[in-house]
C-alpha cells in the first residue's frame, strides 16, 4: 500500500506503508562541531549551538544557515566538539566555594557611603 498524502511530495515519493523502517545505528551520523558567532566586529564570539558535519568546511556552510539566518552576524567559528578540552562534571566541586568569595565581586564593596562622606568634606 503506497502512502497517499495531502502533501503531493509524499505521495510522489511512493512510500510503502507496510514497509518497516530500521532506525539508524546510533553512531551512524556525522560528528558535531560547536558554533560560535560574532554579532559585531570587535565583540566576543559567543557559543550558539552545534551542527553535524563530515568536515569543518561543511560545518561552516551549515552553521551559516542554522545560526545566522536571522539576526546580525559578521563572523563565525566552528570547532570540532572533540577538540574542545572540557572539565568533568564530577570535578564540579572545584567551583563550589566560588559563590562565597564575595570579596571578588565589585558590588560587594560598600564604598558609596565613603565617597559621599568625602564629597561632603570637600564641600564644607
Amino acid at each position, binding site marked *: 500500500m503506497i502512502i497517499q498524502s495531502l502533501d503531493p511530495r509524499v505521495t510522489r515519493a511512493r512510500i510503502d506503508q507496510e514497509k518497516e523502517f530500521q532506525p539508524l545505528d546510533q553512531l551512524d551520523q556525522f560528528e558535531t562541531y560547536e558554533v560560535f558567532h560574532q554579532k559585531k566586529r570587535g565583540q566576543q564570539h559567543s557559543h550558539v549551538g552545534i551542527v553535524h558535519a563530515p568536515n569543518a568546511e561543511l560545518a561552516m556552510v551549515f552553521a*551559516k544557515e*542554522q545560526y545566522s539566518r536571522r539576526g546580525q552576524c559578521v563572523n563565525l567559528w566552528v570547532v570540532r566538539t572533540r577538540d574542545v578540552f572540557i572539565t568533568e562534571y564530577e570535578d564540579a566541586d572545584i567551583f563550589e566555594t566560588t559563590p562565597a568569595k564575595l570579596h571578588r565581586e565589585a558590588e560587594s564593596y560598600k564604598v558609596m557611603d565613603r565617597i559621599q562622606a568625602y564629597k561632603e568634606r570637600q564641600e564644607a
Partner: protein
Amino acid sequence: MEYTEKHVLALKELLYKMADDQLILGHRNSEWTGLGPILEEDIAFSSMAQDKIGQAQALYEILHELGEGEPDTVAFMRNAEQFHCCHLVEIPIGEYDFSLLRHFLFDRAEQIRFDMLAQSSFEPLAQVARKFRGEIKYHVMHADVWVKQLGKGGAESHGRMQDTLNSCFPMALGIFEPGPYEAELIEAGIFPGELALRNKWIEAIRPVIESAGLRLPDQFDDTSAYGGRYGSHTEYLQPLLDEMTEVFRIDPAAEW
C-alpha cells in the same frame, strides 16, 4: 543613452527569464523541505530556495514598474507557455545528486550574471544585482563545498556525481540560450549577452569540477535544451505550475 522601445522589450525579456528561472528553481528546491538528507542540509537548502523566490520577487517588482502585472499575478496566473525559464529548472528534483549539481551549475551562472548586471546601464537592475551579491556568494560556497565533498567521496558517490554531471550539463547549457534581443541588450549596455556569460561560466566551473575529481563534459554548443526562453518547455513545467498555484487560484483576491 536613451532606451528605444526595442531596448525596453529586450530588458523585459531579460528580467522575465531571470525571474522565472529563480521562481521555478526556488519552488523545485523547496520540494526538499522536510525531506533533505540531514537536518542541517534541509534547513540550508530550504533557506536558499526561499532566497530564490525573494530574488524573483525583486525582479518581478522591476517588471511591474516597467508596466507589467503585479508580481503575484505574474508569478501565479501564467501558463507554461508564457514562462521564459530554461528547461534545467523545470526538471523534477530527482535524487539529491541531481538537485545539488543543478544548484551548483545554475548558481555559478547566476553569480556571474549578477556580477555583470551590477555594471548594467539600467540602474534599478544594477541595484538589485548588487543587493543579492552576498546571498549568491553563499549559495555558490555551499554548492562548491558539496560538489567537492561528493566528487571526492567513495566510488559510488564519485560515480553518481560524474553520471549526473554528464546528463545535467547539456541541460545547463539551456540557461544560455540566446534571447531574441541579444544585440539590443549589448548595445544599450544593459547586459553583455548570454554567450559572454556562458564562456565565463565554463571558466568558473572548470576548476571546481576538476578539484572535485570530476571531468567537465566538453560539448559546449549542445542546443538540445533550448526552447525555454521562447515558451517551449518540458512536460514537467505545467504540473509544477498547477501545484504551485493551487492555493492562490482558489481565491486570487485573498489578502494574505
